[in-house]
């Protein structure tokens, strides 16, 4: 094996540039006296084109390490700060150079990468003889269509998956293992083997390593992954073919040097068409994606298609060969977005059905779409009936409802046991979830009771409540109740009340609403539009001047006037409640002045939830 792969790699990259470096150093020395840093950088960027770019791409700081002793610290900082700029300027120039070199000096690259791939692939080589035996013993399944029916039938009888069945009867094409890997994180999504014997012990680690190598090579070849990609790593009689889509890629281990390119693309596109969203959002949890179904799709890779199998000449045994494919950008990105859009539309329609058409208020509502387009609904409602209604509505959308109701036993129990289990530290995730559940049911109860829209946030030890309540009395009640239940935390309140409407005053003996009160009426209507659940209670008082029955009659007439004016402006008739009195309001005492009489001829307003 090669003694020092890395220095070889380095030599490959830097030998030719040595002359340039020397020239550059000379120039730097000359330029050190120049005052203008911009000029300096400008001139340097011409010279260091190739060297700097490669150092940047190669990413090991070797370059800076090498020139650090020679050039001043200030200049180094300058160079460093403008990495991005430099890359942009230099990129077109160096791209062709590097690509050319990669092709010219293949063997050196091979040597450098060998130790990485070597261990991984040697497993296959050692089991090659065993494979051969198995392959010979394997009977060929004839007639494809017949075989398929038989397989289905047998799978039913035996209760095993079709994918498993497919693999059992595959006539051992050259595919040994298939990995579907999340591009960004390198996390393994699915691994699938022709036989138990071929199983990778550490498939997850291999997936990560393969991803690292892929990034390394892709970065090295080009800064733009969409233009060129590592497509194949060959080793002796084995090879890893790589086919990538938007957010995932397929790595397939084969032995017989069969050109799989088209087939890989076809199979991968099937997976991506169906699961683009799940693939995009994959975070290492395989239960978030229908693994079994993906396995069925991928298992097609194990089935030999004689016509498609093209024997290919391969390089001398023992030599690893990196093929760089220059591929046009794929269309997955656009398609992925389209699928995500369709999913979103469906989610919105369901949400509208529940909240708008059926007017069910779901607190903390969340709609997400999982495998096979299954929609998961969550949140909390007040009543059991509401919960059941949502379950029924969801059925039409193939949605699973996990919505809870405050009336559910287990939710109520949270309150019952609260004092006993209470632990102020609340550090464990269990405690936090417990507390979250309490907060949620508290809020849902409050919102149900007052038909309000209070919400909370829970960060660290702090809980913030915000929203609108009907009036100051209820706001006070709410705060008291929150303090009683959650006083062990730091509480913040940002609660508005449905804003007070100013009084309307009348002239003596008149039932007309003076024009100056138009604004008051408009405001009442605007608030009504916003808080449709509330009743507007109007209290009409009079001045107690003259007989009671006259005053009462006048009050009725004034009440009608206000009512009509409101309804005319669009106020829901059902939501206006009028109480007319012949007497003075409580806030004016009965033996008052003329001014007091004037103030007594008034209408006051109150928003209430109940009639």
């Amino acid at each position: 094996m090669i003694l020092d792969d890395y220095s070889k790699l380095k030599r490959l990259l830097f030998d030719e540039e040595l002359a340039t470096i020397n020239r550059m150093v000379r120039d730097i020395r000359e330029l050190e006296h120049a005052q203008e840093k911009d000029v300096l950088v400008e001139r340097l960027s011409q010279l260091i084109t190739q060297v700097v770019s490669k150092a940047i791409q190669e990413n090991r700081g070797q370059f800076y390490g090498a020139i650090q002793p020679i050039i001043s610290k200030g200049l180094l900082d300058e160079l460093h700060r403008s990495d991005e700029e430099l890359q942009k300027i230099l990129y077109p120039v160096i791209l062709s150079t590097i690509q050319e070199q990669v092709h010219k000096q293949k063997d050196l690259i091979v040597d450098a990468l060998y130790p990485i791939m070597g261990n991984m692939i040697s497993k296959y080589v050692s089991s090659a003889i065993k494979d051969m035996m198995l392959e010979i013993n394997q009977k060929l399944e004839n007639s494809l269509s017949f075989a398929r029916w038989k397989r289905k039938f047998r799978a039913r009888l035996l209760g095993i998956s079709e994918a498993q069945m497919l693999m059992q009867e595959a006539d051992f094409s050259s595919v040994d293992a298939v990995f579907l890997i999340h591009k960004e994180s390198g996390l393994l999504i699915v691994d699938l083997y022709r036989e138990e014997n071929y199983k990778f012990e550490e498939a997850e680690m291999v997936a990560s390593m393969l991803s690292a190598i892929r990034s390394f090579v892709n970065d090295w070849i080009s800064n733009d992954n969409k233009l060129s990609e590592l497509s194949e790593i060959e080793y002796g009689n084995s090879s890893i073919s790589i086919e990538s889509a938007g957010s995932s890629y397929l790595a397939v281990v084969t032995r017989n040097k069969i050109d799989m390119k088209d087939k890989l693309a076809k199979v991968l596109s099937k997976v991506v068409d169906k699961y683009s969203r799940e693939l995009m959002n994959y975070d290492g949890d395989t239960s978030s994606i229908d693994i079994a179904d993906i396995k069925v799709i991928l298992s097609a890779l194990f089935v030999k298609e004689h016509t498609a199998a093209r024997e290919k000449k391969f390089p001398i045994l023992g030599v690893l060969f990196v093929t760089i494919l220059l591929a046009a950008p794929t269309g997955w990105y656009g398609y992925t977005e389209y699928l995500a859009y369709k999913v979103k539309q469906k989610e919105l329609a369901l949400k509208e059905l529940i909240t708008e058409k059926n007017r069910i208020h779901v607190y903390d509502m969340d709609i997400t779409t999982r495998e096979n387009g299954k929609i998961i609904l969550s949140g909390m409602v007040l009543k059991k009936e509401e919960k059941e209604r949502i379950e029924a509505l969801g059925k039409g959308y193939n949605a699973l409802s996990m919505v809870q109701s405050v009336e559910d036993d287990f939710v109520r129990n949270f309150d019952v046991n609260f004092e006993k289990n209470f632990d102020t530290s609340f550090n464990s995730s269990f405690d936090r979830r417990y507390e979250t559940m309490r907060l949620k049911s508290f809020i849902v109860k409050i919102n149900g009771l007052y038909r309000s829209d209070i919400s909370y946030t829970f960060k660290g030890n702090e809980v913030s409540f915000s929203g609108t309540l009907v009036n100051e009395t209820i706001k006070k009640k709410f705060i008291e109740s929150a303090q009683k239940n959650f006083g062990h935390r730091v509480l913040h309140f940002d609660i508005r009340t449905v804003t007070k409407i100013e009084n309307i005053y009348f002239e003596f003996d008149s039932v007309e609403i003076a024009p100056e009160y138009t604004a008051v009426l408009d405001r009442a209507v605007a608030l009504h539009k916003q808080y449709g659940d509330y009743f507007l209670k109007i209290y009409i008082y009079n001045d107690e001047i003259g007989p009671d029955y006259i005053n009462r009659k006048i009050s009725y007439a004034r009440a009608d006037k206000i009512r009509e004016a409101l309804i005319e402006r669009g106020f829901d008739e059902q939501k206006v409640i009028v109480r007319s009195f012949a007497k003075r309001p409580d806030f004016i005492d009965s033996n008052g002045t003329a001014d007091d009489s004037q103030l007594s001829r008034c209408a006051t307003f109150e928003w209430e939830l109940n009639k």
Partner: protein
Amino acid sequence: MSIIQKKIILIGSFSVGKTSLIRRYVDNSFSDDYISTIGVKISKKMIDAGDKKLMLLIWDVEGALDNIRRVNKTYIKGAAGAIVVTDITSEHIGETLKIHLEDLYSVNGPIPTVIAVNKIDKDPGFRFDMEPLLKDYPGIAATLYTSAKSGQNVEELFAVLAGRITE
């Protein structure tokens, strides 16, 4: 119950002890040779976090000899959490931590992060004030004083991060 995979990365300046910390901790890993070849080494560790079983895929990402060059950003992508390592002998702890945190955030946003101040065996009383960093880097969940040599706080380092990731 299914096992959830999580990619976590260790970044930090050269020689602060990233590779040593991982070696102390993991179940299995690729050879150290790979770090010098492609600048990254993968290790694996199974860990329970709350009611979840996690498989941590730990990326040992090589920094730079001179502390100036930064890590390959594509290696940082897709990480669920990070350990940013410094050591008590480093000269500019605050500044270098900032550089690495900046790299991290520019790629992944404020993912859960734990700071390891390593080689605490050399001066057990050593403390560094992280307060100024917390405001700009809200992902920082904790600072732990570790020693790859004695094993002090090594398990805790990964456990705290795993806990934060699953929260």
